[in-house]
């Protein structure tokens, strides 16, 4: 790697990484408008000029879907923004989404060669810039699709993985129907990630592109209930099925008091606010409670989304309660930083023991233990250990549990032959092939890996499309015995 640095001569050194313009922290902590407002054209050009156009770029290797980053940034420098977008779209369907929600600091920007000595090129912000440029100015053609193959594919779940697979399969000439359980397409992009981080209009725009390409999206279809996978294949004539229904079943802590009023899963809290727009109650009919003292248990992106939503709904004190230290918080660095600026309080090295209720059955507090970090555990992170006698009570009126999700058992109940892993996810030959133990049925995204990121789910959708296309041509399958 050091050779490569010597090889390259930065064109314009010492231009600092362009900061992302954002709403004032105090103001935005009380509204649902997008936190960051996006680069101006001038900023985008300055930031693009920081890319040294390496001969052997590492950034692409850090991208789960292998976007040709060097080329798209080069096109930005030439002010060919639609060309840059086209370059990204060769590998990723949803640049406006990924530019906003990808953990770039752990992926492309983590390996950026500029970042070895200076701050890395702000790849995510540039990706967002070109996507928003098209959103604002229009332009760009619908992708060309191959002539119809006459094959039909059913995609179960309209989240990032399903939308990506639907896109790729349609380009390859297959007829795709996406079945979505909820009344809006987008999956976690519409029910989970809040408006202030990902405006829903962006998701709608991407879904409309798919529909214009000929993808049919059937809403309110809970596969496994209204129809089984066998029915899709045997009665409705689908030649293959891609299952990407996510890992949506929320975990609770299993501590006493968890069914008190005022305890929610992050999924419930966020679904009310995002999908059902309860933050705008009573203009929207779904209610949401406005609490004064709210604790969100957990430290991931979902926890950050929940705590910042609580703040925007009017909380005076909004806490993140996490059992390890700040260094171990799994959320994106930017979300943690934004949350801190907005006034979220981090109650770290703290583990809940029980939720305390009042006479009316409502939360009044949460008893917690202080933790300290011991020896590293299996995940390589230092294991939190309770300090003896460190019990203390946080005064609260709501507790939002955000400690993860698992797979929904619904599909397994009605799909004979669909193998399940010990952890309850769908068994596949490999994450690369997406082939399940049932012929013609592929699976990918969170339902295979467990809860992960949008971009990884999209990567799985891409793999699935490639392998479904192959299967539709050669009909070959695998068997567990020969594997």
């Amino acid at each position, binding site marked *: 790697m050091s050779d490569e640095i010597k090889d390259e001569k930065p064109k314009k050194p010492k231009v600092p990484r362009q900061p992302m313009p954002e709403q004032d922290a105090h103001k935005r902590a009380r509204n649902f408008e997008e936190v960051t407002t996006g680069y101006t054209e001038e900023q985008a050009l300055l930031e693009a000029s920081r890319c040294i156009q390496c001969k052997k770029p590492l950034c692409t290797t850090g991208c789960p879907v292998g976007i040709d980053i060097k080329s798209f940034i080069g096109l930005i420098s030439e002010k060919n923004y639609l060309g840059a977008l086209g370059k990204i779209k060769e590998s990723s369907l949803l640049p406006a989404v990924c530019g906003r929600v990808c953990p770039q600091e752990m992926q492309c920007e983590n390996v950026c060669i500029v970042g070895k000595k200076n701050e890395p090129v702000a790849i995510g912000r540039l990706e967002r810039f070109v996507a928003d440029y098209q959103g604002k100015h229009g332009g760009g053609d619908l992708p060309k699709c191959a002539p119809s193959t006459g094959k039909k594919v059913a995609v179960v779940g309209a989240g990032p993985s399903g939308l990506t697979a639907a896109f790729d399969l349609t380009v390859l000439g297959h007829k795709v129907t996406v079945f979505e*359980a*909820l*009344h809006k397409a987008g999956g976690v992009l519409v*029910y989970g990630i809040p408006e202030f981080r990902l405006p829903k209009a962006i998701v709608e725009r991407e879904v409309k592109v798919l529909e214009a390409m000929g993808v049919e999206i059937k*809403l*309110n*279809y*809970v596969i496994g*209930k*209204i*129809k089984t996978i066998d029915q899709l294949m045997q009665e409705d004539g689908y030649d293959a099925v891609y299952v990407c229904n996510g890992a*949506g*079943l*929320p975990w*609770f802590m299993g501590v006493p008091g*968890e*069914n008190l*009023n005022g305890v*929610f*899963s992050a*999924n*419930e809290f966020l*679904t*009310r606010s995002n999908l*059902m*727009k309860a933050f705008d*109650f*009573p*203009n*929207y*009919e*779904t*209610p949401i*409670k406005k609490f004064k003292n709210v604790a969100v248990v957990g430290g991931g992106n979902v926890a950050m989304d929940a705590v910042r939503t609580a703040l925007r709904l009017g909380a005076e004190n909004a806490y993140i309660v996490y059992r390890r230290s700040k260094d171990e918080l799994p959320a994106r660095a930017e979300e943690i930083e934004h949350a801190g600026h907005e006034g979220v309080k981090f109650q770290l090295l703290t583990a809940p023991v029980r939720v305390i209720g009042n006479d*009316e*059955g409502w939360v009044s507090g949460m008893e917690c233990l202080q933790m300290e970090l011991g020896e590293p555990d299996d995940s390589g992170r230092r294991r939190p250990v309770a300090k003896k006698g460190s019990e203390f009570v946080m005064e609260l009126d709501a507790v939002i549990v955000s400690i993860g999700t698992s797979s*929904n*058992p*619904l599909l397994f109940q009605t799909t004979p032959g669909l193998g399940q892993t010990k952890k309850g996810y769908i068994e596949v030959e490999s994450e690369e092939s997406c082939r399940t133990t049932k012929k013609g049925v592929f699976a990918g995204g969170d339902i295979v890996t467990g809860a992960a990121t949008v971009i990884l789910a999209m990567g799985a959708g891409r793999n699935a499309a490639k392998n479904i296309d192959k299967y539709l041509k050669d009909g070959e399958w695998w068997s567990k015995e020969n594997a």
Partner: protein
Amino acid sequence: MHEILKKTVWSDQVPRITEFVLDAPEIARAHQAGQFVIIINGETGERIPLTIAAKDAEKGTISILFQEVGASTMMLGQMNEGDKLMHVAGPLGKPTHVEKFGTVVCIGGGVGIAPVHPIAQAMKAAGNRVISILGARNKDLLIYEDYMRAASHEVRITTDDGSYHKKGFVTDELKGMIEVEKIPIDLVVVIGPPIMMKFVCKVTEPHKIQTFASLNTIMVDGTGMCGACRVTVGGQTKFVCVDGPEFDGHQVDYDEMMARQRQYLPEEKLAVDICKKKMCHSA
């Protein structure tokens, strides 16, 4: 979009009880007794869980009944034949466990009579002797009597004020059947207000009569994603939408369930007040 093919107002008393027959061929084909749908009325609507009260698989229709107790159901009640519901998702939840038990008593209280109807039908079709007990506050609020007579071998009716058949509660009738008439009962299925289900279970428990209770908790997605509907059954947390809606009635923590049902009362009241004002304006 699902067209309202037929609208029946069962009771004009406030809160009104209304039935829609909806065009929903795929749901009608897949539906089994005990399952529910989630409906959304319009762009700003909430997701409302409603148990399917009847279906016609050949015609491709399902029936839903609702009482106009909240803003969303009040607005739903303004819809007419020919109008279309924006979203209907289902059938959801596990179907009722149906087999030949022997004598099955199906109890419906208030608007809960509607969802008990397909269960009575299925139990009768499975060869059980079905005795139904229907309870209502008064004669005008009693719904589905004829349907329940067709679905049962025998129907008994109680009204709180004695305006129709026996004065009293469904629990009084059930107790009489068990303790006075000495009718051997193999299974009780009960759907109604939580307090009624709780007391029905208190009647059957000492006699060790298996009792299914179908719970109607607060839900958001209805597919296992949010946990708003969670209840404690036998000391364990269960999701009504995917683990239920039917549970062993003797194991359900009704007090916790009733407390959880009251979570949004202030918001519901606010929404109803706004809704009434709007309706006055448009009237």
